[in-house]
């Protein structure tokens, strides 16, 4: 089995920053694995601005922000990038198996940084009862369909949850000529950033229902309508407060969950890592509000991995 000094799983904002900082701290053998066909992760579909304000002191789009890291990585020969490479197995000894088209490889990492990001909470996780037609998307999937694939997921949209991606997508749908009927948030305040509530909802006069939930989804083939109901302090439906909204599309924007299945499969708890030389950073470690903060903290992971490797001599 080939041994590598530092292996990083995931090349989104966390993995890329960790790779650069590890190199800058002296690591000279870095393998960066990315399962998608390009570096940057989810940044590529975030074509709105708001990235880089603290990290670069510039207002950038997601792809622009990613590009600054990608350029740096490409200029460093000691960082080997492998795209379309999917890590399938990990052991406590930091042995990692990944597959890519045409190849299965096992490597042993002296130091390993997991920067595997997060996934979105689904309709199933927040238990919205009703039919199961087409037209229900996670906000991130809708974002990918519009911004990467050039497709319009729906024309009359209800957004469940006020996570930042949902708020950004509310504006995106309006700009694409669709109607956004409402954003429904079960909590008393927005989950997303205040600036997104103002710039994405208020500026476009999109109705924002706090302390409300979608009680039921209707539609045999395609979404037809939703029932909305106000909730009390205990998040229980208030009788008689319900109303319906006709729509053909529902976006779920109810937060993110760290993707740590690989660690878990190796019997390692992401929140409590006691294996020397193993680090977790970015949304895989905790859910951040801003990509800038992800990059900032991931620099630390790269630095610590470098220090760990120095310690090995």
């Amino acid at each position, binding site marked *: 089995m080939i041994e590598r000094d530092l292996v990083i799983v995931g090349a989104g904002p966390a993995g890329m920053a960790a790779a650069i900082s590890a190199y800058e701290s002296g690591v000279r053998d870095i393998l960066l694995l990315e*399962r998608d066909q390009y570096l940057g992760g989810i940044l590529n579909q975030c074509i709105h601005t708001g990235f880089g304000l603290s990290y670069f002191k510039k207002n950038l789009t997601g792809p622009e922000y990613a590009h600054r890291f990608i350029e740096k990585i490409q200029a460093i020969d000691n960082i080997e990038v492998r795209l*379309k490479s*999917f890590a*399938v*197995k990990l052991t406590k000894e930091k042995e990692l*198996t990944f*597959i*890519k*088209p*045409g*190849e*299965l490889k096992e490597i042993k990492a002296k130091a390993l940084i997991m920067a595997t990001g997060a*996934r*979105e909470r*689904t*309709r*199933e*996780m927040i*238990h919205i*009862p*009703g*039919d*199961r*037609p*087409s037209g229900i*998307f*996670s906000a*991130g*999937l809708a974002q*990918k*369909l*519009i911004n*990467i*694939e*050039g*497709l*319009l*997921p*729906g*024309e009359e949209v209800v957004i469940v949850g006020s996570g930042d991606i949902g708020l950004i997508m509310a504006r995106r749908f309006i700009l*694409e*000529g669709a109607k956004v009927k409402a954003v429904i948030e079960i909590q008393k305040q927005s989950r997303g950033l205040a600036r997104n509530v103002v710039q994405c909802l208020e500026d476009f006069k999109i109705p924002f229902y706090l302390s409300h939930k979608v*009680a*039921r989804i209707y539609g*045999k*083939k*395609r979404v037809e309508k939703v029932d909305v109901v106000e909730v009390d302090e205990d998040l229980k439906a208030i009788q008689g407060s319900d109303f319906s909204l006709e729509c*053909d*599309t529902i976006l779920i924007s109810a937060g993110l969950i760290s993707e740590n*299945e690989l660690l*878990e499969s190796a019997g390692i708890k992401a929140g409590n890592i006691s294996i020397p030389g193993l680090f977790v950073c970015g949304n895989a470690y905790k859910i951040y509000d801003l990509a800038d903060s992800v990059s900032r903290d991931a620099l630390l992971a790269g630095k610590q991995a470098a220090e760990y490797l120095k310690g090995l001599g």
Partner: protein
Amino acid sequence: MKSLKSTMIDVLIIGAGVVGASIARELSRYKLSIAVLEKEEEPAFGVSKSNSGIIHPGTQNPAGSLKGRLCLEGNTLIRRISGELGLDFKEVGELIVAFTEDEIQRLLTIKSEAETLGVPELKMVDKAWLRANEPNLNPEVIAALYAPGAGVISPYRLVYALCENALKNGVKFYTQTRVENIIFTNPGFEIQTLKGVFKARYVINAAGLYADEISAMVGVNDFRIRPRKGQEFILDKKKENLTNHLIFPLPSKVSKGILVIKTADGNPMIGPSAEEVEDKEDSSTTEEGLKKVFEGAKKLVPSISQDDIIAYFSGLRPAAALAIGSQTTALWPAGDDFIIRYEDKAPGFINVAGIQSPGLTAAPAIAKMVCGILEEKGLGLEKKEDFICEREKPIHLFNIPLSETEELIKKNASYGDIVCRCEMVSAKEVEDAISAGARTMDGIKFRTRAQSGRCHGSFCTTRLMKILSEETKTPLTAITKRGKGSEIVKGERTID
């Protein structure tokens, strides 16, 4: 209406669920012309898609019932079919549990009834056995009836395997072909569909929830299908070892109760509820359903957490209610049996209706029974010498060791191109599913598991749409979840 088939077909089967598919495959052994009509875009999109996948051992069937006999026979046949058609049948065994001395008495009754029927190897197990073999079971369970012959199989992959094999043996499948009317032409039938008219000597009604309506077309209307909804909740694959067996409570009057189910693919499942509904297309889930199922499952395995639920669905059991005189009863009592009979009122027409649990298990035996009826009623069954009995086992990376995956990737690079990250499904598997007949996103899901994991398709939907679009030469905007009207997107972005 133009005649699609001017020639007379020997046997026409209505419905491509597990029953219709089993009959089609069984009949394809013989020198016959056979057609299967399915109203949906793909087979298994009706009742079969929401089956639990349990292969029942034969317990919990009323003494002397048809379904009891067919269940027992099916349990044996399905093992052979799984081998022939490259399916994964897992004999996991089942435990029907008792919490009180009274319940033990009821278990003993179930045991002796099942033994009379011929269910083998049943035994009572005690608390110590349960603690050793089923550690997550509620410690308040004091005994259980153990039926080692129970197993699990993927219900839709069973249907697809049967259809693929039947197709290979000459059966013709017509999807999106809803039957509008049937004319008895004495002899034979004219079957009118939106896609044209079919003529057949024999018609087999395996139309599931719509079997009553199809039967009424030939004047046989002494039964109604009363859908009984079951809501089921799927848990994360991480919980694969939650239980080692299928766990059953004592059965109620209308159902086997809320179970903790092992599945062929690893994800445990809890459910189903049992609710009478009117609408034959009602596949909705409800808050009450979740609550009920969850409470029921927690009673069996207290450590189940609501956070483990990654998906849910509901399905309808096509329970039959027989009319008494001219009146249809509101509902026949529990234990209503299958209706499998030759209709003398419309000679050549066979009803296979009311196939609720244990229908999946019984399906291969039902197929044999139907063949027997056909032969008895004058259809010559002459064996084909060139019948292809076997189907190549489709590859699923999720259930083979990595060493095998490595070999596969060397042979075909696309096995290393992972599309669905949660369930580890490669582009090659998706392409294979499409060449085997998948035409919709659900069709891909049922065949490959792509989109059925914890992210629920958030990451792989776009890639799957593109593969389906390329392979079937369909525009992305026409890709559907499960047939026309369920398109994934509304259109292309307008570019100014």
